[in-house]
């Protein structure tokens, strides 16, 4: 059965993010692959997700976990073949699961044939596919993103004896999107994967596509022009395919990437993510309310993408200095937990393995406006290893069972692409899919249940949101509404029991029905609606006028 034919499918999606390398190894070489992933699709279907976002799986020297692509239209042999990918895609679609792949447009690996040609001589036809300069003083003042590793956005190429521009690692030269041939080549890449059947693309590092002197070289109108051109061609040739923007910017800046419904379908809401953590730690709804108040309206057919954790560090670029200091003190007091401007930890360890807080954060993720993304392993509360270097500590093998290599691979443990998490708290012997499948009360079972509930009510994915303002600031309450469908969400952000009085005058006469237990609560009347909540408890109520 193919996914339903709905061009707005991305609005109703619950996306599961994974790297094929990390998920399941079918051939015993210690590295996950597409055949292994295909074997685990039943698990993902059972979990209730309906879209998979795959991290880069292309041929690559893997100096940036695959974001340094050496060939756009093939599969890294370590992960399988293009045929394996097609098999996986068909299997996913048959389970009504869509697949979103990475399109790293801004740069390639320095091992990509395009760059090898470009650097071979100044007269090479591919020379103008990258950004070159005889000096390193162009685009002065443009910020360096990877502060921990890079000194400049320019690097010297000893072969062609000139500088090339790179916003990320020096082994990732930026493509020159002023060159129509580059834009055409990128469209060819998209066509290639659309023809195979992928459902959407997550476009990496979008704000940096075009450079102009005297600017920050971010979010330039010319960059938007490139996106509009691609979107137009995509809509014409492949209606229903989705573009998701990675633009780690303030909401007002990201808003431009939706354009007039003619750029991206979705974009990550980066600033919301740290504020969800902050709100729970501070026990105060202020950070969430503030950032959502600053979030502009987006076109009707667009959607924010929200997440708690992902494969990168928990980025703290979109917070104030004061907020960043607080986040570091609260969640990364060990310096090893910090990298760049962020925190390289997983959800469960950040919540000190407190089920109540993990559930609360997931409850927020799944009830706020936007398409939620669940990072692989977080559904079972996997831990991390901050001593593995870079962000590898949150990219360890998926923990399927308590047996050999956690059920991830039959290889010798020494051969695994990464050590397993093996400490007594988060180790695979205690945290794994099989053991959690056996308990109705496990985090995995709870996650399935909450996803199922979300999927049953379109109001969560498409409804409006109205924040209530109870005087108790430890309680975050809002009403989601889509037509006649209304859901009241009440979250206790505090570590202690709370009473809250909600002004529900607009919903007078409605009966709140708790959505997990389906229990009736007293009808809403004239008085403020009194609720008491246990520490970190949250309620989802259907409001029904019966």
């Amino acid at each position, binding site marked *: 059965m193919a996914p339903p034919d709905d061009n707005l499918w991305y609005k109703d999606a619950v996306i599961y993010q994974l790297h094929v390398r990390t998920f399941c190894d079918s051939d015993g070489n210690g590295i996950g692959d597409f055949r292994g992933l295909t074997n685990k699709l039943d698990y993902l279907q059972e979990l209730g997700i309906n879209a998979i976002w795959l991290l880069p799986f292309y041929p690559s020297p893997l100096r940036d976990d695959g974001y340094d692509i050496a060939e756009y239209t093939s599969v890294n042999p370590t992960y399988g073949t293009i045929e394996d990918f097609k098999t996986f895609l068909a299997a996913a679609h048959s389970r009504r699961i869509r697949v979103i792949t990475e399109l790293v447009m801004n740069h390639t690996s320095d091992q990509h044939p395009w760059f090898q040609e470009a650097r071979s001589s100044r007269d090479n036809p591919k020379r103008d596919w990258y950004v070159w300069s005889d000096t390193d003083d162009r685009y002065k003042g443009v910020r360096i993103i990877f502060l921990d590793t890079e000194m400049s956005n320019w690097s010297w190429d000893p072969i062609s004896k000139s500088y090339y521009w790179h916003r990320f690692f020096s082994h990732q030269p930026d493509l020159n999107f002023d060159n129509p041939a580059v834009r055409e080549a990128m469209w060819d890449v998209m066509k290639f994967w659309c023809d195979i059947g992928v459902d959407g693309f997550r476009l990496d590092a979008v704000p940096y596509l075009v450079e102009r002197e005297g600017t920050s070289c971010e979010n330039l109108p010319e960059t938007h022009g490139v996106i509009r051109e691609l979107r137009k061609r995509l809509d014409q040739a492949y209606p229903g395919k989705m573009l998701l923007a990675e633009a780690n910017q303030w909401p007002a800046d990201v808003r431009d990437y939706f354009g007039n419904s003619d750029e991206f379908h979705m974009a990550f809401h980066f600033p919301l993510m740290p504020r969800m953590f902050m709100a729970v730690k*501070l026990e*105060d709804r*202020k950070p969430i309310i503030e950032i959502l108040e600053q979030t502009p309206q987006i076109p009707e057919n667009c959607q924010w993408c929200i997440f708690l954790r992902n494969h990168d560090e928990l980025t703290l670029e979109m917070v*104030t200095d*004061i907020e960043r200091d*607080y986040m570091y003190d609260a969640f990364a007091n060990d310096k090893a937990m910090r990298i760049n401007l962020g925190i390289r930890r997983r959800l469960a360890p950040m919540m000190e393995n407190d089920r109540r807080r993990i559930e609360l954060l997931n409850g927020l993720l799944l009830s706020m406006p936007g398409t939620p993304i669940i990072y692989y392993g977080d559904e079972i509360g996997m831990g991390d290893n901050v001593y593995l270097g870079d962000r590898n500590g949150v990219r360890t093998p998926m923990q399927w069972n308590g047996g050999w290599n956690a059920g991830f691979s039959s290889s010798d443990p020494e051969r695994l692409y990464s050590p397993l998490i093996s400490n007594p708290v988060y180790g695979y012997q205690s945290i794994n899919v099989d053991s959690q499948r056996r308990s109705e009360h496990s985090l995995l079972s709870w996650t399935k249940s909450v996803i199922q509930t979300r999927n049953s009510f379109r109001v969560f994915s498409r409804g409006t949101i109205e924040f209530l303002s109870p005087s108790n600031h430890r309680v975050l309450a809002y009403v989601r509404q889509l037509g006649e469908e209304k859901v009241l969400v009440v979250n206790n952000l505090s570590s202690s029991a709370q009473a809250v009085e909600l002004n529900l005058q607009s919903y007078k006469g409605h009966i709140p029905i708790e959505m997990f237990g389906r229990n009736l609560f007293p009808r809403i009347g004239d008085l403020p609606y009194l609720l008491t909540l246990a520490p970190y408890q949250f309620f989802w109520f259907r409001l029904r006028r019966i």
Partner: protein
Amino acid sequence: MAEDIFLGDDFLRQLMSVGEVDLLVALPTYNNAGTVVQAIQAIEDSYQQNFVRDRVVILNVDGGSTDHTTEAILNMNGRKAGAHRGITSLRTVHRVTTQYGRTPSQGLALQTVLAAADLLRARSCAMVSPATTNLDPSWIANLLKPAYRQDFAFVAPLYARSKFQGLLARNLLYPMSRAVFGLRIREMYSDEWGFSGRLATNCLGQKLDEAVRARPEAWMAVTAICTGMKCCQSFLGPKAPPTSGPDIVEAIRQTVGNLFWCFHNFQDHWLDRTGTEGVPTFGSDHELMPEDPPASQDKSFELFRSGVKGMDTVLPSILTADTHAQIRQIAALEPEKFRFSSELWVRTLYEFAASYHRATIARDHILQSLVPLYRGQLYSFLLEHGQSSPEEIEADSEGLCLEFERQKPYLIERWKAKS
């Protein structure tokens, strides 16, 4: 004190919503609509500049204002994130407003504040006055930090004052309380002070006598001292003179009456205490600023002279015969030759305190009888120091303090005397 308190349901509801806090700043008001907004902004600024991570509340306790003070507070807009010099609190800055009665009372206001501090489990609190026109955000921080970051229970302010400002404190309250309780706390009577949550809870459990309700801050300080809690001083800055305040009779009733009451009620804690010690001081020490000599105080002298004469039958009930005789003697001097010596002033005050303790006559009469004598001492001080430099005045004040300490055995003698 607890049994006297009735907290309204609305107030309790507000407190429930606030929950536990780290810091509480209280603002007792009565018809302060003109200045209260500015005061609250200063408090919010202080929170945002100094306590961005902390759980904070601003508590307004109103004594029945008729000028829409409360409405002015409720209608204030909160600061938006980043709107104020890029600094914003991470948490909600709460404002709670309640009316404790229909008539103003510092004591009832404090009771309400203490109850709130106790219920909210505030770790550090400050009281500030909306009448202080130059309330600065740094003042709030300086009052809160010693109890919050360290374990001080009472935080007295220190000000930069002009030479002739605060003379009642300089010539009576400070040197006398310092000698009796043994701690050098310069401003025990002030519109601004800080205290710990522990002291608030402690005070909440005690009876607040009518005698100290008008100026309860010194009672809190003495409670802290006498229960072994740590006190300190924190420098705030220049203190603008109040635009209005009680007359001298009322001021003496409120402050000296309060002090004598504390002597009486905490006698077990100071009768055996000898010597004095300094308290930790944050920021610079108090400062004296130059000021032109005040206008002629001839009227003060006349009131002193007529008062001594008019109280000829009352003063013997308060003073010893020798002291009374000496006062009558100086009252007969020509104004330009007049001098109220430190030795006589201290002895007079100690005899008044002892009489208050024994209630030789109605205590309020004792306090009222002190007023003309204070006018005489004030006249003497201004006559002597009209042209003195701040340093000379400081030296004289220290001399007076030492005189109080020297004569403390005399106070104890009079205190224990049968009549």
